């Protein structure tokens, strides 16, 4: 068994809001091995981005993070001072954000911002950092890289800016890259290019990747492992095959039913949708989080919190009182109809 780069046990993030304490992330546990891709999937507001930001310790001041275990390359990240944490950020773990249009500083050149990412952590000369920037810009598929260094963000398209962000995340060759919906703001054609690029980069540099998305098509293409997140909790985790072939949680099943399948989904037929809205996470919640929207809800779901348990295999876990077969069988009949 390969030693994991990142290990997270019972990560919780509570955010102070005017109406109380919002439990944005609740008892989330996962690990990422070297070169592995973990996809965290879920709808807007389910806590995906907060999970990523909490790993970087870039949460807003009103948020509190706690965890039973949080290690990067066997180093405990809990209780690190801001100064120690800033030494790790950008060096051992880097992050790519959702909004390439606004994620670069408009008043500095691309070259300046790339070089700075390296010179902060490595004792290199300006020209060495520049060469590294050119090398990586070429790597992420930007032509005329040396000339681009003098350009400003507003002179680049969204796709190019996201490539620059990816190159920037690679400046110090981090062990782990967190990509928070890196393609959401881009055109569909560019989305595919950026995804391929991330997958290539991961393979070439043996980087571990946590990809946060709400697009299951992306997950199917690049994920080794998948975690489905709902209302602050992981409701199903497993390998991509396990989750896609035998979705065991009613929410995962609902998500999969929302995707049209060419040849199978009839033209004009209704696509699946999950009725209802995400529950309010302010205050303590002592039931299954999905109960209010679940088609199979019964008294057992409302009697107390539901724990993760093994589905068909031990590495495939889901958070539901029902037997996994119920949902899986239902999904097949659902898509056939």
């Amino acid at each position, binding site marked *: 068994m390969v030693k994991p780069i990142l290990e997270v046990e019972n990560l919780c993030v509570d955010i102070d809001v005017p109406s109380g304490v919002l439990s944005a992330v609740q008892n989330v546990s996962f690990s990422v091995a070297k070169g592995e891709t973990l996809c965290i999937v879920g709808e807007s507001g389910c806590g995906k981005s907060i999970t990523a930001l909490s790993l*970087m310790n*870039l949460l807003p001041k009103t948020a509190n993070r706690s965890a039973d275990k949080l290690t990067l390359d066997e180093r405990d990240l809990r209780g690190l001072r*801001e*100064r120690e944490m*800033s*030494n*790790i*950020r*950008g*060096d051992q773990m*880097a*992050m790519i*954000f959702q*909004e390439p249009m*606004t*994620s*670069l*500083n*408009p*008043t*500095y050149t691309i070259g300046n911002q790339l070089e*700075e*990412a390296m010179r*902060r*952590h490595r004792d290199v000369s300006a020209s060495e950092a520049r060469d590294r920037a050119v090398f990586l810009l070429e790597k992420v598929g930007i032509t005329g890289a040396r000339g681009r260094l003098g350009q*400003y963000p*507003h002179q680049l398209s969204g796709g190019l800016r996201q490539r620059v*962000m990816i190159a*920037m995340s690679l400046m110090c060759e981090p062990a782990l890259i967190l990509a928070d919906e890196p393609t959401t703001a881009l055109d569909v054609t560019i989305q595919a290019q950026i995804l391929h690029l991330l997958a290539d980069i991961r393979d070439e540099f043996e980087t571990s990747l946590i990809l946060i998305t709400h697009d299951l098509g992306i997950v199917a293409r690049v994920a080794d492992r998948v975690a489905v997140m709902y209302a602050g909790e992981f409701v199903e985790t497993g390998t991509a095959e396990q989750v896609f072939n035998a979705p065991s949680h009613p929410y995962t099943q609902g998500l999969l039913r929302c995707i049209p399948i060419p040849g199978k989904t009839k033209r004009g037929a209704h696509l699946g949708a999950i009725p209802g809205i995400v529950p309010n996470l302010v205050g303590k919640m002592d039931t299954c989080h999905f109960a209010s929207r679940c088609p199979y809800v019964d008294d057992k779901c409302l009697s107390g919190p539901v724990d993760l348990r093994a589905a068909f295999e031990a590495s495939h876990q889901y958070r539901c009182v029902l037997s996994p077969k119920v949902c899986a069988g239902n999904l097949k009949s659902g898509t056939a109809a």
Partner: protein
Amino acid sequence: MLAYALKRLGIALLVALTVSIITFSMVYLPGDPAMALAPESASQEDIEHIRRVYGFDRPILVQYFDWLVNAVQGDFGHSHYLNEPAANVIFDRLPTTMLLGACAITFALLLSIPLGVLAAIRPNSIIDRIALTIAVVGQAMPTFWFALTMMLWFGITWRLLPITGTASWKNFIMPAVALGYYVTPGVMRLTRAGMLDVLASDYIRTARAKGLRPMRVLFKHALRNAILPVVSLAAVQFGFMLGGSIVIETIFAINGLGFLAWESIQRADLPMMQAIVLVLSVFYIALTLLADLLNAFLDPRIRVS
């Protein structure tokens, strides 16, 4: 950058031309300028004589262009009262006013920008509260009253600073503080608002995600973006100080341009007033131009549009 600079320069020249037309027409504001110059006992013949001597009998366009060509060459006409070229008087007084203005704006910026930044880093903290208090008090307090209060305490009660004149650098402390303090609230609030805005932006998160130290994030990435509107405001305020130091210069008996303006208005010395308005306007325009160029230097996006 050069194209942008030339464009801004062209606009500045057009503004200056417009100002010169308005300034020139000041002569005709009271009605017949010859009549205004003549003493009450003057006969119709005397008035006609004055009209010819001062050239008011020529077509108005000819008068304007004559005046403009002379002004561009540094000849702003003759002061009626002092019987001296207006230019000489102005350039005699200008350095004092410039020095006072420079001291005042330096004081204002040194006080307001750090306070604004601190208030933005810790919103609703004690520093923020203090800054807010300074802003409210500064905005509400009349300049002349503040100046007189300072005079009373520092000049008379404690005898720390000289009250009037321009004999030494100490003379400039109170006037500069009085003049600069009025500008502080606006600059500080703008710095605070700009910093709050920028600190919440995505590229600041990126800078932090790179592992940059807080000071570097603050001063390299945030301040440069937040300072842009402050540059424009400071330039306008500096121009305003040069012209608006009338009250302060009068109170502290500083022989500057503001004091001269006040004297000239009292003496109805029109050429002198014209010259002062024109010179101050040109300074104002130049400062705005400078602010635009500085902003273009700071923000590449401005250079394009």
